């Protein structure tokens, strides 16, 4: 009698499968919003988020910028930082996911913030689409609309960073509000997004 071959991908510790993750409700605009900028210490991340944030204040009526640094870019947000962001921000821009671990972690952070009721715009680079998507799948939100920008970001100079920020702003606003939402990816249609 042949023995059964064990599936090595199923842990004896029990399944870690998650249910569908809810997303945060959006407002129609950023007017008066406190915008969190969660940079992950990657080269140029803070400057890119700053450029985007300043545009959100200048052109979209955001009230203030709340700058936070995630020191361990590969790891999920700690409960403390998550709580701080939830209290001090109305929306959060996360970035830049431009490495194997930090891209996945950026998407995980976005999904965690959404679950806490904070709309997010997560910026990763195109080189890390696969790992960004893998984390969205793992976390139970396969249609999570992270933003992909051209790779690399790390060696852009100040002027190029400004240009990149200008390219990204409308997409960031679309992610953070109900205004002018761009076409969702196919997987998105399966998920009901709270209004």
């Amino acid at each position, binding site marked *: 009698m042949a023995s059964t071959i064990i599936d*090595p*991908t199923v*842990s004896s510790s029990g399944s870690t499968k998650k249910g569908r993750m809810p997303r945060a409700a959006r407002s129609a605009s950023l007017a008066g919003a406190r915008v969190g900028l969660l940079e992950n210490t990657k080269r140029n991340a803070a400057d890119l988020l700053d450029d985007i944030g300043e545009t959100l204040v200048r052109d979209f009526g955001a009230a203030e910028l709340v700058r936070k640094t995630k020191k361990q870019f*590969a*790891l999920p947000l700690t409960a403390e930082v998550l709580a701080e962001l939830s209290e001090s921000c109305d929306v959060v821009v996360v970035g830049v996911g431009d490495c*194997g*671990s*930090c891209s996945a*972690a950026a998407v995980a952070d976005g999904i965690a913030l959404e679950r806490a009721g904070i709309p997010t715009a997560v910026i990763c680079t195109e080189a890390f689409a696969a*790992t960004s998507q893998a984390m969205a799948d793992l976390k139970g939100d396969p249609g999570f609309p992270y933003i992909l920008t051209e790779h690399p970001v790390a060696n852009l100079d100040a002027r190029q960073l400004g240009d990149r920020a200008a390219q990204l702003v409308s997409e960031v606003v679309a992610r953070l509000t109900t205004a002018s939402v761009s076409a969702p990816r196919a997987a998105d249609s399966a998920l009901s997004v709270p209004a």
Partner: protein
Amino acid sequence: MTGVDTRPLDPAAATVVAEHLYANGWTDGLPALPATDETVERFLAETDRDPDDVVARHLALDRAVTVRDVAVHAIMAGCLPEYFPAVLTAWDALAADRAANGGGWQSTSGPAPLVIVNGPLRDRLDVNSGGGVLGPGFRANATIPRAIGLTVRNGFGIRPHGFEQATQGLPGRWTMGIAEAEEASPWEPFSVDGGLEAGDDAVSVMLLRTCEFVDNRHFTDPVQVLRDFADTIQRSGSWIFRHSCVGILMNPDHARVLAEAGMSKQDVREWLVAHSGKTEAELAAVGKGLSRLPDGPFPPDHFHPVFADASPKSLPIIVAGSPNAAMSMVFRVFGEWSGRSFPVR
């Protein structure tokens, strides 16, 4: 796995099983063995640990891997049951490794775990410490690190082109297992540097980014050998942070010559720490100047040492290989390692 099995061999069935493991995406590209409840029990009998104890966690991916799970991966990697405590202890070491816990398995760097075995266990498991120590040809050397790789793949779900984003990877990922040639070394065992007693069965693990040989067999003065090590240690291509952890897999003949010159292992470390580095101008010439750091800017002739200090954590030295030619390996640690050796259990 012990005792004589008199059943007829069925190569056709073996091929079907191997293809089944491939078809499910459970292997690293090489054939693997099937794990069954019976073989898992044989592995579990080799340890006192509770089969349900969690030995490895991946925080970002929310994965936990138990003793029983690691047995499955070790069987698939081709380990013998008696290797199992060494595999589990390798995970104890990785649990203390900041780089492994900080996204190392997903990294573009694609680092490879180097598993180092010390103590009498080396002979019981037949872990090679001599000629061809980095392989191939020895089952324990080859399969213990492979078991780690299969845990990362199947237990954590970190697969190439998915969560694993190695840019090029490196030769030796999942194949670098060695024993220290303690008998051929003039110095205390590496596991003593890692905090254990000489003679303890010990496993130490660090993630590597590469190995680079230093072939220096016609020296007339031990300092020539040290200068040659320093030149390889300080090369700019691998320079990414302020300081680096760089180790030496030292040929017994290099170790002998240095010891005969009166140098302890710590003396060797201190010499290399004092002499390995580049000036700000040399780093700036390759676009890696450090003047943007908070304590910069630096004058062009400012000397930046490679190492933060002369500890075994910054500069691990392990003696291994054949003394048939005085060749050693400089190896690059990914980030930093724990600096600790772990008792096998």
